[in-house]
């Protein structure tokens, strides 16, 4: 299809511009460089896939076919109507033959036509089905023979030709030579050599015909496309084929996995009876009837009690109200798949009492301290891991991600990822506990923690639906964030609402470039965020912010991508790049934002923290300048600050009294003359402040006249302006001041 073709051609095929194409691919995770001219065939297929998927619209649960698909269907129908179609063995054994059959059968039916198959092809298939050493080939051949038989019965396939010749290829050549004069012929084969030879029949000049010979192969979508008969790509093709088969082999999982269900399995849940609940000293039996003794109690929780046993495992014994048929079935299901990883405390064996009553299960012992209690409380982090630095945080993220990947590969969704379920011994040794709440097949995870619950499933009852991997990726992202900013939930913000509302709003408050909502939590959290490398910040921002490109469930960054992001971070730490840029790069509790290389930094003489030149004066940072000594005014007791600015920069002495008490008397704001009796009265400063606060005008009458409220004031309306003794002087000085104001 597309091999080493311009991106432009692809873009024009889909009626979009090159920029739009690149953006669309970017959004789906495939990154093409803008100037890239040649694309490999593999990439071409990927691009085609992505573009097709994005254009499929689902309306009323039916998929409406895209333009391009319609083209392929039309072309196929054209062949059916006008050509005699032959199928070769190689095409029948192609991976996409089933898709092809699905596509072509309805068209054959509506046009009442058949596909032709020669008996030599049938004999080859039989040979493979009965005598091949390749198991896969055998199975494939058997399957396709069955389908062919069915189609023959339905009159959609006709077997024509004689059995004299043995080589199918030769038969095709002779048949096509013979009938090329009277019929349009189409051969569907994957074999390039045969295709080449058959195509060359069109070049025969001695016998002319107006009929056409076409050779096609089955493409990835079950439709027909041309062979690429360029010789160099033959080698290319074989290389790609070998790569593809290798990858497919890898996909054959060496381990088993659970099936993926979409709905909670409905089964009646009956309580299981138990005569006496086991306790220390009791003997229990496993599936095989072996005896397990409970030695002593390790811990007790809401659901059950954990005991040490005389085996290498520990036992979880459920409380009476937790024993029911659904739980029993779920544990049985969990045990059916072997989980080798010792640091995931997964059920290994079921435990029964000596009366064959289900009581619990055995699991490997966990070590370490809950993430919540070791890393997420600053003082405890400093106490328990005094030498912990960012490198350890990144290592811890990778360790946890690998374990989650292990479980996801087996189609196990953890569901309730939270810091109380993860125990930490070191950044490389981590244990997962409370595993019986994991979501397996149709058994949901019945619990959740609000901070780790994706916005689309908030406020839902966890018992009633199955979580998807996308829901899980939100929890994973939150966990990684809370490890890098120890203990801080991503949506905590200044002036925020309840955690649920914050999460649903997706108003992420940490800055990316110049995008910020100015509600970032104050203090060390800002600095910690700033010291993350840009690509890490970008990933978090895109996941958590409602405008981010990975914020919708279908776009969320998955575990594998997070692993590559953190591996890249780890590399930058290990090769010293980050430390060279800023020596605080490895501090878990940095004291300032990350240094930017183009600015000059100096240490403040008071707080000893480095700040940009522009934020310091005379060796003291702006923050320290506004701080100072706190004391009270000698006269009125008001709170005052002797700032460092006054002390060091302005060289002013410490004032003993506040501004208002300064003069020794109450400062006057204005001295006015009453409009009625023309006597002078004062308006002290604090009275003026009160008036201003309540938006009242300055009184024009003295107190006496005001209370009398004489009508003289109403008569003498003419001159409302009070004869202000000082007003002329004030006006003049104001004028001068305004001239010289900056």
């Amino acid at each position, binding site marked *: 299809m597309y091999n080493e073709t311009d991106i432009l051609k692809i873009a024009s095929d889909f009626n979009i511009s090159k920029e739009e194409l690149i953006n669309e691919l970017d959004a789906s995770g495939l990154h093409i460089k803008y100037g890239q001219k040649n694309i490999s065939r593999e990439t071409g297929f990927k691009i085609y896939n992505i573009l097709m998927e994005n254009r499929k619209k689902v309306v009323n649960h039916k998929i409406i076919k895209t333009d391009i698909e319609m083209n392929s269907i039309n072309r196929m129908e054209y062949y059916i109507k006008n050509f005699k179609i032959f199928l070769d063995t190689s095409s029948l054994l192609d991976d996409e033959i089933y898709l092809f059959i699905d596509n072509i059968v309805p068209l054959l039916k509506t046009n009442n036509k058949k596909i032709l198959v020669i008996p030599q092809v049938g004999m080859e298939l039989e040979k493979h089905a009965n005598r091949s050493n390749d198991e896969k080939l055998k199975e494939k051949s058997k399957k396709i023979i069955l389908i062919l038989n069915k189609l023959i019965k339905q009159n959609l396939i006709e077997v024509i030709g004689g059995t004299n010749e043995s080589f199918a290829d030769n038969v095709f050549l002779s048949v096509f030579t013979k009938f090329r004069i009277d019929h349009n012929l189409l051969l569907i084969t994957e074999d390039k050599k045969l295709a080449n030879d058959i195509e060359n029949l069109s070049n025969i000049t001695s016998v002319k015909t107006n009929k056409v010979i076409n050779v096609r192969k089955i493409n990835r979508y079950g439709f027909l496309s041309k062979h690429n008969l360029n010789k160099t790509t033959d080698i290319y093709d074989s290389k790609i084929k070998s790569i593809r088969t290798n990858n497919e082999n890898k996909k054959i999982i060496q381990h088993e996995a659970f099936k993926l269900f979409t709905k909670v399995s409905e089964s009646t849940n009956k309580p299981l009876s138990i005569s006496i609940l086991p306790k220390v000293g009791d003997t229990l039996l496993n599936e095989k009837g072996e005896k397990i003794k409970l030695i002593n109690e390790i811990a007790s929780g809401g659901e059950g009690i954990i005991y040490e046993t005389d085996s290498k495992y520990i036992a979880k014994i459920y409380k009476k109200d937790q024993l029911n048929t659904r739980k029993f079935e779920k544990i049985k299901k969990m045990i059916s798949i072997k989980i080798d990883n010792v640091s995931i405390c997964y059920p290994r064996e079921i435990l029964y009492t000596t009366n064959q009553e289900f009581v619990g299960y055995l699991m490997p012992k966990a070590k370490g301290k809950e993430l919540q209690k070791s890393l997420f409380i600053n003082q405890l982090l400093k106490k328990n891991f005094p030498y912990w630095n960012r490198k350890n945080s990144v290592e811890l993220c990778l360790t946890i991600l690998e374990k989650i990947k292990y479980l996801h590969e087996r189609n196990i969704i953890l569901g309730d990822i939270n810091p109380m379920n993860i125990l930490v011994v070191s950044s490389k040794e981590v244990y997962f506990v409370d595993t019986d709440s994991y979501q397996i097949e149709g058994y949901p995870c019945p619990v959740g923690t609000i901070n780790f619950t994706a916005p689309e499933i908030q406020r839902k009852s966890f018992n009633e639906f199955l979580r998807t991997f996308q829901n899980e990726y939100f929890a994973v992202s939150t966990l990684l964030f809370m490890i890098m900013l120890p*203990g801080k939930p991503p949506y905590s913000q200044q002036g925020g609402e309840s955690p649920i509302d914050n999460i649903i709003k997706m108003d992420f408050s940490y800055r990316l470039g110049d995008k910020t909502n100015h509600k970032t939590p104050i203090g060390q959290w800002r600095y910690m965020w700033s010291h993350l490398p840009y690509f890490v910040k970008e990933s978090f921002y895109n996941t958590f912010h409602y405008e981010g490109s990975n914020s919708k469930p279908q776009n969320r960054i998955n575990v594998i991508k997070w692993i590559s992001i953190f591996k890249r971070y780890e590399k930058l730490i290990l090769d010293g790049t980050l430390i060279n840029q800023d020596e605080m790069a490895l501090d878990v509790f940095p004291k300032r934002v990350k240094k930017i290389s183009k600015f000059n930094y100096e240490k403040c003489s008071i707080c000893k923290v480095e700040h940009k030149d522009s934020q310091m004066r005379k060796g003291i940072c702006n923050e320290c300048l506004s701080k100072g000594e706190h004391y009270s005014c000698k006269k009125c007791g008001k709170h005052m600050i002797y700032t460092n600015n006054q002390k060091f920069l302005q060289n002013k002495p410490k004032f003993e009294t506040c501004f208002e008490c300064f003069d020794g008397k109450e400062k006057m704001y204005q001295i006015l003359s009453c409009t009625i009796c023309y006597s002078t009265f004062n308006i002290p400063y604090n009275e003026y402040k009160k008036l201003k606060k309540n938006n009242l005008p300055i009184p024009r009458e003295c107190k006496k006249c005001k209370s009398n409220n004489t009508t003289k004031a109403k008569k003498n309306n003419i001159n409302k302006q009070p004869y202000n003794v000082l007003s002329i002087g004030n006006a003049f000085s104001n004028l001068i001041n305004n001239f010289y104001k900056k």
Partner: protein
Amino acid sequence: MNEYELMVLRQKDLISNPTARVPVCLCLDISSSMSGSAIDELNKGVQMFYDAIRNDETALYAAEISIVTFGGNFEATCLQDFSNIERQETPVLSAEGMTPLGEGVELALDLLERRKQEYRDKGVDYYQPWLVLMTDGAPNGNQRTLDYAITNTVNLVKSKKLTVFPIGIGPYADMEILGEFSPDRSPLRLQGLKFKEFFAWLSNSISRTSMSTPGEEVKLDIDGVKGWGSL
């Protein structure tokens, strides 16, 4: 350490400690009827409460306790304001005076509201605050203040913004008035002077709450209540 510096330190705690907080206000009756063995037992209980929280790693960083006492000359005093428990000294109570229950509750609610606002400003998650109200007699403070306090409390409880524990001490406690403060939980009468058991249960409950997520409903351990209280 003056007022201002103390306030700065309190804000600092909010910034550096990201744990979701459980604000608890103990509103305690120190009227003269409490003097003698009652106030002694109460002191021991409070001491034990502080110790229990200090020894529980999760609760240590999550619990924030304030103490309001009402007594004296119809006055309610804030004996200790909200702050990180590591900075607090266990207070010692002495009994004398009247029982201005309404004034005490009003002050407690004000303190709780102020602290909640500080949480919101600094971006710290918090659980529903708890008000523990203990009295051994009948209120004899201002009637209007009392009514006002009851209305406020009931409103907050109904809109799920407050949890109230009204406790009556001794045989003369006015259970009816206590009942008015708590529409959905009947007040409990302390068995004798079992303060220690009550505070043990309280610190345990705080521990359990701080291990859940803010906003989630926590099922309080009602079995423990039978230990110290009786209807």
